[in-house]
């Protein structure tokens, strides 16, 4: 097959990336984007290349993946409803399990409507592209997730970007838009690269003053922000002014899937017009059954929430006191991002950490804002103090092995 490549190879445009990736691997380091977990022992531990590894980059914030009730719900659903639905939500792909999952979401958020998508990516893609159409405006934070940018592209709306978390910049841009036009402001509660949170009261107030509808993505905030764990928007007290909340099952909920909840009276029509919802197969019954059980347990998981914050503070404080440069001065979310000087050092540090038995995420532009290189840690409520202390020791050892300059201990 490869012998017959046409003269104009469509993959040729990726040659620079192929070369860059090959260059990275030629230094002898492990492929940061090719990790295989041979065994998953618990939400915080796995076997990678035969080595016992502490997982510190999985977004499994509330450790629900092995919760006995969640697993049992999935087992019962696969037994009673089979392995998959083989169909779209609007045709043969809505089972009792999907209904119960949407009911759980409505109860969790205290909202009247909930729509479950097959992934979080599709939830943003679908909501953003369906809410705003030709002649409308989407105003998004510059550091928005790729799924939001892709939703914008698909929407045919005019796209306006404002400086990350900058209320004054948002206002300046909103002032330039025509008064009568439909406007959607898209925000995230937690920005997953740096782990910083949005000043939602200021941003939402400005959006509302300019007649915009507001969508907040709480992918990285669900489960442990706010009294009911609904997200940053709940904690910051702006629930009444948020029109749509988008979220995911692949972080705190512990499985896969995406959703949008809302009190908008016309919300249900979106099921028929939202293409990433309509034209794809629905989630397997086991997945939505796991999600429903997990969501109901998260409603009252106050001890776990407290523990997650405790473990996060321990990691953030420990890294800081060892002289690592962190993306946020204080722990704002359950993501702690360590700033790295360049691609080579980031890759070497990442590789050394994995050899030492610690898995974190390596992040680089264009996924990261402002060209920064990061080692991104996400903490789980089930990380013990011992595990965090082990991780801190290994970070220090990796820095020494890699010759990473550390600052003075704070």
């Amino acid at each position, binding site marked *: 097959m490869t012998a017959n490549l046409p003269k104009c190879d469509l993959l040729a445009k990726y040659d620079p990336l192929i070369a860059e990736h090959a260059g990275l691997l030629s230094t002898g380091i492990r492929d940061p984007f090719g990790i295989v977990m041979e065994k998953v022992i618990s939400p915080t531990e796995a076997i990678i290349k035969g080595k016992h590894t502490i997982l510190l980059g999985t977004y499994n914030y509330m450790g629900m993946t092995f919760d006995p009730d969640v697993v049992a719900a999935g087992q019962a659903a696969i037994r009673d409803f089979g392995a998959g639905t083989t169909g779209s939500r609007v045709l043969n792909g809505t089972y009792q399990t999907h209904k119960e999952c949407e009911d759980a979401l409505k109860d969790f958020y205290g909202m009247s409507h909930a729509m479950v998508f097959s992934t979080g990516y599709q939830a943003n893609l679908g909501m953003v592209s369906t809410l705003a159409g030709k002649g409308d405006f989407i105003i998004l934070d510059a550091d928005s997730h790729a799924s939001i940018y892709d939703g914008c592209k698909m929407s045919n709306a005019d796209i306006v*970007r404002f400086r990350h978390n900058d209320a004054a910049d948002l206002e300046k841009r909103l002032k330039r838009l025509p008064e009568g036009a439909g406007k959607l402001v898209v925000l995230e509660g937690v920005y997953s690269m740096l782990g910083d949170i949005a000043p939602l009261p200021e941003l939402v107030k400005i959006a509302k003053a300019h007649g915009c509808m507001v969508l907040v993505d709480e992918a990285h905030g669900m489960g442990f922000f706010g009294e009911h764990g609904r997200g940053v928007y709940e904690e910051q007290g702006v629930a009444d002014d948020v029109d749509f909340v988008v979220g995911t099952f692949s972080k705190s909920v512990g499985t896969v899937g995406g959703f949008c909840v809302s009190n908008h009276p016309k919300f249900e029509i979106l099921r028929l017009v939202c293409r990433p919802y309509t034209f794809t197969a629905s989630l397997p019954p086991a997945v939505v059954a796991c999600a429903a059980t997990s969501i109901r347990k998260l409603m009252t998981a106050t001890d776990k929430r407290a523990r997650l914050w405790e473990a996060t503070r321990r990691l953030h404080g420990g890294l800081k006191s060892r002289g690592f440069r962190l993306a946020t001065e204080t722990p704002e979310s359950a993501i702690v991002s360590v700033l790295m000087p360049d691609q080579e050092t980031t890759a070497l540090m990442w590789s050394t950490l994995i050899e030492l038995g610690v898995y974190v995420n390596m992040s680089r*532009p264009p996924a990261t804002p402002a060209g920064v290189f990061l080692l991104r840690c996400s903490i789980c409520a089930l990380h013990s103090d011992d595990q965090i202390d082990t991780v801190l020791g290994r970070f220090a050892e990796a820095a020494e092995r890699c010759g990473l300059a550390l600052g003075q201990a704070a």
Partner: protein
Amino acid sequence: MTDRASVYARIIELIEPLNSKKVPLTEATTFAGDMEMDSLTVMDLVASMEDEWDIMIPLNMLPDLETIGQVADAVTGLVAKKG
């Protein structure tokens, strides 16, 4: 009245600090090809042009604007439309 020549001249000034490869800047110079600007830099440049003339350049307009000359045309048009 903001004429195209003054818009073009100011755009060159705004690009200059971002022109890390020191490519000669002409009407036909392309952002991605000649200057090898990444998408983040392009978006910062867009923001600075928006603020300079108090206009809005939607992101979805960018794929059609490959050269400095095309950007100058677009900005001149947007400024004229603003009145």
